[in-house]
């Protein structure tokens, strides 16, 4: 049961501030974008790996590209680094057109998914490699290498070869090597994929700390949604070479703009629905599977009679044994429950036979009998109109 790391803040922010399709953070209105990807398409033969991607990224951001396997994340990164020429479109960094520059002339460095350390060089030589092309004295180079090794806490391993250090240490060497040239933009392709969960979480925070210290703009590719939400100021969700939604973690989690994004980030319940009435704030939709009407947050362009999808996150649903006077309350029966310690996941069968997932935090320390509901219990579930998401596609 994946749960985004910032859920608490996100819930607090679920008021009016954000709105569906929020594209950029507030500061972006003034600042010109630091990185601008304009209608970039990349085809391999007849296969389109990246399809008409337009993106703007601000200086100092940690931006995540999130998407399933084969959706074109690495390809987009390689276009930015200069390893692939886009079939169409242009790439600008800091106002300069980079599209036709080779990788060795771009102010961009990349941390490869496989780390790609030079096997025949020591850790120190690896980190120093990029500096030999910089206009620096020997002493300055040595100083920079020392700083970088310090930053990633590898000073004592400086003389080891890559095969003599652990996976996590290798990952830090790769990071130090990419940062040593002080690039304007650092591209990270699944930087943490090879690490175990504990080390990954630890390294996430290290990465954020390093980003804060250096002020470098990061673009991080990942297929791990938790990682994207923890790390990034904003993220883009990709599918089949297209960008489906761009926004902060809160935006895409609380205000998904499509079934794909809603289903990709976190888990969610979908229902087929039909629009009945629409208002400024809320809309009434009929949901046969729930056996009644639901008041949901309105989205623009709704017309009565229109078929639509209703989406409700499991943790936004409240469970109770007694019926109470809340909007969007429906009866159901507990089919099964899974206890995870900090929360429990209930599978509730609705009278229509449809199963709904409900996630409930175990706030109190309770024994078996004191739980909100148990197997086979008849319960009432309810959710706030603000938690009822309407999706057109």
């Amino acid at each position: 049961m994946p749960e985004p790391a910032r859920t608490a803040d996100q819930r607090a922010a679920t008021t009016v501030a954000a709105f569906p399709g929020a594209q950029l953070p507030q500061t972006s209105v003034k600042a010109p974008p630091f990185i601008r990807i304009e209608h970039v398409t990349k085809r391999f033969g007849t296969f389109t790996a990246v399809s008409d991607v337009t993106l703007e990224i601000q200086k100092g951001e940690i931006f995540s590209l999130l998407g399933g396997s084969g959706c074109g994340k690495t390809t987009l990164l390689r276009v930015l680094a200069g390893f692939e020429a886009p079939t169409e479109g242009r790439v600008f960094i800091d106002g300069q057109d980079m599209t036709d520059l080779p990788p060795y002339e771009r102010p961009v460095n990349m941390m490869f998914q496989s780390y790609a350390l030079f096997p025949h060089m020591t850790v120190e030589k690896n980190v120093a490699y990029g500096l030999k092309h910089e206009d620096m004295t020997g002493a300055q180079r040595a100083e920079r290498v020392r700083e970088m090794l310090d930053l990633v806490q590898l000073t004592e391993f400086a003389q080891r070869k890559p095969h003599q250090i652990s996976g996590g240490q290798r990952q830090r060497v790769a990071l130090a090597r990419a940062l040593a040239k002080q690039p304007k933009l650092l591209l990270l392709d699944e930087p943490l994929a090879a690490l175990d969960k504990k080390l990954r979480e630890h390294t996430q925070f290290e990465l954020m700390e390093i980003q804060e210290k250096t002020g470098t703009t990061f673009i991080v590719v990942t297929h791990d949604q938790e990682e994207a939400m923890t790390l990034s100021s904003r993220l883009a969700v990709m599918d089949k070479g297209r960008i489906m939604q761009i926004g902060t973690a809160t935006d895409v989690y609380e205000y998904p703009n499509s079934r794909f994004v809603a289903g990709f980030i976190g888990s969610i319940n979908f229902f087929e629905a039909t629009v009945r009435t629409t208002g400024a704030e809320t809309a009434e939709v009929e949901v046969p599977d729930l056996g009644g009407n639901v008041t949901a947050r309105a989205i623009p362009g709704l017309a009565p009679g229109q078929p639509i999808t209703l989406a409700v996150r499991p943790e936004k649903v409240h469970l109770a044994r007694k019926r109470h006077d809340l909007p969007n309350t429906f009866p159901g029966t507990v089919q099964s429950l899974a206890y995870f310690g900090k929360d429990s996941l209930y599978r509730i069968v609705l009278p229509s036979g449809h199963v709904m997932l409900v996630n409930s935090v175990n706030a109190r320390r309770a024994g078996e009998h004191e739980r909100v509901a148990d197997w086979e219990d008849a319960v009432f579930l309810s959710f706030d109109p603000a938690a009822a998401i309407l999706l057109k596609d």
Partner: protein
Amino acid sequence: MRRRSTFLVTMLCFGFAFFYVPILSMMVYSFNGSRLATVWGGFSTKWYVSLLSNRQILNAALLSLKIALLSATMATILGTMAGIALARFKRFRGRTLFSGLVTAPLVMPEVITGIASLMLFILMAEWIGWPASRGFTTVTLAHITFSMVFVTTIVHSRLSEADAAVEEAAMDLGSRPWQVMKDITLPIISPAIVSGWLLAFTISLDDVVITNFTTGPGTTTLPILIWSKVKLGVTPDINALATITVCIVGTGVAIAGVILNRAEKRRDRDARMAYQANQ
């Protein structure tokens, strides 16, 4: 289990004996004091001494060495380039054909390669007047063509196993393609290059068939000389000569093997450590 292992050991001994008894007996008889190849006349190194004063043999050995050095070096340069092209350029017009053409000589009977080389030299002499006569140059050229295949194969397999991202990383850090070649690619494939050179060297050093087709009057390499002498009967000085050749060739092949083996072991260890680190 036990019986089977006895059986296997016996088989192994027979196999080794089959291969090495002839060579060993030749080595032993090279220290034979008697002139007759079949009679043991006590231990002696006089055939080795007599070799050293035999101008004909020394000249042939020197020529063989020259040809081997030159052809191995050229074959290594060309073969390395072909190997890199095959390993790193996944798509270019005629790649399949190129790759087939590069490896075909591996399985081609030497006689065919020899005849083909001879035909080419004769035709070229007719069309462009070069080579006017056959000798050192033609033998060296022929040796280059058939030994570079081995270099190509070794370099290709070594480089295919190496992560192409390593070279991209160097380019990403500001190196131009030729710098990447110098700093990254060549060091990574250096064990393959060295062992390729050694193989090419030993192949050239002991070749009879192709040399026979492409050589001319006055150019007698060591194996050719041995071949012609043996036709008149095996003498102990031939045994001595052959023993030296076996030692040189054996050492070359062994060093090539050790170098490749060490690189492989290191790669295995890297892979194992990477795997463990990911646990």
